[in-house]
């Protein structure tokens, strides 16, 4: 029987402790999705757009963190689906135009236009 590899145990133990750091899971955005929502009011088009996003996008994409983007700036800077001032080249609008999203096809043309208007006129 060989000696116990203590160094191996020590390295793995340290790694296990470090591993406790990142905790993102299905509930990380619960407060934003299901708690009281406070939207940034600096963009006058955002509130209407967020209602569409909430009902047509965020409600299914629960495993993304879109729910926490409560300002236009966060959508433009973090989401990777919105290009400020360029709706037609934004992946969000491209997916809708191609009838790929929302998967149940339930978004209306006026709701799509609300999103286009929001992105094209983002401050």
């Amino acid at each position: 029987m060989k000696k116990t590899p203590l160094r191996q145990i020590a390295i793995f133990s340290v790694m296990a402790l470090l591993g406790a750091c990142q905790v993102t899971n299905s509930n990380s955005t619960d407060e934003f999705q299901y708690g009281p929502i406070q939207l940034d009011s600096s963009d006058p088009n955002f509130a209407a757009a967020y209602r569409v996003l909430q009902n047509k996008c965020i409600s299914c994409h629960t495993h993304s963190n879109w729910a926490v983007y409560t300002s236009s700036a966060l959508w433009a800077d973090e989401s990777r689906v919105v290009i400020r001032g360029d709706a037609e080249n934004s992946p969000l609008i491209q997916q809708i135009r191609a009838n790929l999203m929302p998967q149940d096809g339930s978004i209306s043309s006026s709701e799509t236009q609300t999103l286009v208007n929001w992105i094209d006129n983002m401050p």
Partner: protein
Amino acid sequence: MKFSVALLIAFLALVHSRPAEAYPHFIGHGYPSCLNCHYNPLGNGPLTDYGRSVGADLVSSGMFYPQNWSDEKVASLSGFLFRTPVQDHIRTQINYRGLYLIQNPGTSIEKKQWINMQADGQLILKFLEDDKLTFVGDFGYSPPEQPIPGEDPNKKFRSREYYVGYRFSPAIGVYAGFMDKAYGIRVAEHIDFNRVIPQVTQDDQTHGVMVHFVNEEWEGAVQGFVGNLQQASDLRQKGFSAIVERSVNEIHRVGFSVMKTSGEYLSLLSGALHGRFSLKDGSAVLVELGQTRKSTQNGTGDRNSRYGLLQTYLRPIRGLYFLANIEYLKGDVTNDSTTIRWGPGVQFFPVQKLELRLDVDDSRNFNPNASTVDNWMVLLQTHVWL
């Protein structure tokens, strides 16, 4: 030893991780219980020595081994870094799973990406007669895909399980620590898709205590949990879950799961029926039907969702499995919209410690009130375990 550790560190530094995977279809090989091959009696996580030797002999094709190698010779290479363990109390493992994903192939919005699904190192300590007492720890490189407010984006490692297990007898054991919830069938496609609904995905482990029992006819587990204690207290989902299976004709299993969880903003009540049926010689069928009721504090997400899984594995020759996967999702049982994801696949284990897989998936929503299209995906997976 130095080489092993250096290799592990280099490996973990290069990649980042996501889901683990179990193989409940191995009921087709005569293994109805996960306990034979995994330290976690409900599957997932590191393999036992026996599980490693099964992976080397029964599961892999054997066609690339020298003809004069016996099964014993092949199994003797199934240990960490192809070595035979020289002591009884410590085991280490490494898992890497990479995915080349092509979304909407051949269209103007085609997207190709490489995803490091899993890059974990695992440590197992085992003591007492028949390894009654075990400690299992898992660690992987897994940066968050997008920053979450309130969480440090520089924290890129995570542990998906660490627990202590004690088996009072082969029939009953207690496990305490951080682990997956005892609920339903754990296969990767299902975890990526329908298991988002009851929140039993690759990142939804919880701190708790689980009692597991098994005999010739019955197997099950009851788990009480307090949520992920590393997470803010208002986000933790506390509750309980249970899974029970009964053997049918010794080679099949049918069962059910229930789960109730609640936090400050969200409560879930889930139930599922499932079956795992052996077609013998390694072929199998998996079935699950479930429903989840979601209640939210602000009412925006209140709904009942229903889901289903039908997956077949046909094994024409050793090491090769042809798959057919059909998943059903009704996000809200009160509306007309239903999503079906279906497609064929091939799973191949050419040699021990290597799995190659090709899947083609189409997701399509069926809604009589709207125009919808097919969402095609091609998935090429490589899985290496050392």
